């Protein structure tokens, strides 16, 4: 018995490890866990982790009933009854899953944003040097380029603000402020769509430049930036939709 095990088990209630059966649960326990699992949204990994924790809790509860004299099967049935309706248990996790996913999406957008941005800046700088100090992107039309860059800046600002709201309404601040997984999911989705806007505009500016002055682009950083933005558009689209779907599961 490890010191931790001794600590976490209240005295007099079956000791796991001493005569405890291996962790092959009763078929009724597995049916119960499967019923909870099918009602959980979120990533496969997150769901598996939740089910693993519930399984160990069910086994502990079953052990306690066995120690009190019940058979394994009776103990398991009692433990399942004690855990509660699978739909109710699963719905209790909906907010946690929505919050976790929102935080992941918001954090990823905030981390990848500067990287993709640097690639675009590198493209502009390299192309600028390559065209003998001409104004970068000049050939795409100065006014259109300026407007495009302003729009990119606006989209980046929306992404950053929405991602910050998403992280703020589900993290440590919830010690003092209300916990808002629904708001976090919506904000993460907005951040995702705004990031798609920023990346899409970057690609549009690149396309305009290619169309008007194809020879005046530094190809390596331009390709890297385009690939990075394209990948981010695809991933952000999926992530934003997922956040909205999770938001819909919140009652």
């Amino acid at each position, binding site marked *: 018995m490890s010191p*931790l095990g001794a600590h976490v088990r209240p005295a007099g209630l079956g000791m796991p490890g001493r005569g405890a059966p291996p962790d092959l649960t009763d078929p009724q326990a597995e049916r119960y866990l499967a019923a909870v699992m099918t009602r959980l949204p979120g990533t496969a990994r997150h769901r598996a982790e939740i089910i693993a*924790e519930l399984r160990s809790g069910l086994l502990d509860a079953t052990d306690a009933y066995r120690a009190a004299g019940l058979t394994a099967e009776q103990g398991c049935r009692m433990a399942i009854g004690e*855990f509660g309706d699978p739909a109710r248990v699963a719905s209790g996790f909906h907010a946690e899953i929505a919050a976790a996913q929102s935080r992941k999406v918001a954090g990823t957008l905030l981390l990848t944003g500067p990287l993709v941005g640097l690639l675009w800046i590198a493209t502009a700088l390299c192309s600028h040097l390559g065209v003998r100090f001409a104004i970068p992107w000049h050939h795409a039309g100065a006014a259109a380029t300026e407007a495009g860059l302003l729009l990119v800046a606006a989209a980046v600002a929306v992404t950053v603000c929405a991602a910050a709201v998403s992280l703020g309404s589900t993290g440590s601040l919830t010690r003092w402020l209300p916990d808002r997984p629904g708001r976090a999911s919506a904000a993460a989705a907005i951040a995702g769509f705004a990031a798609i806007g920023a990346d899409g505009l970057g690609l549009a500016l690149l396309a305009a430049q290619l169309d008007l002055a194809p020879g005046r682009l530094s190809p390596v950083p331009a390709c890297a930036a385009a690939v990075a933005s394209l990948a981010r558009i695809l991933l952000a689209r999926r992530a934003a939709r997922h956040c909205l779907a999770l938001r819909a599961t919140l009652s």
Partner: protein
Amino acid sequence: MRAEALKGHLDGILLAVLEPGPRHGYAIMEQLRVRSGGQLDLPTGTLYPALHRLERAGLVRASWSEAGGRRRRVYELTPAGRGALDTERGAWSEFSAAITTLLRPASLEPSAP
């Protein structure tokens, strides 16, 4: 005591159960039962999301640990969790003192002049 009656206090109660040291989900449930003298009627399954919420707020820390051949997720208070528990205790003392005074039968009130 139904889960509804606990609304708003479950977080504080969970922090109090974790105050003596780390515990896993089922041990927390048993402690809730023992400490409430069996008065607490809460489906065990609803305890876990509450613990995950506390973890997200940084009030508890969770880690997987293995004991007796079984992997369990063990929760322990963070310093912020201890602070939140103190705050919750103070707020509850004030609230319960006020309600106790308000609910006192009129016959026990000091007579008005």
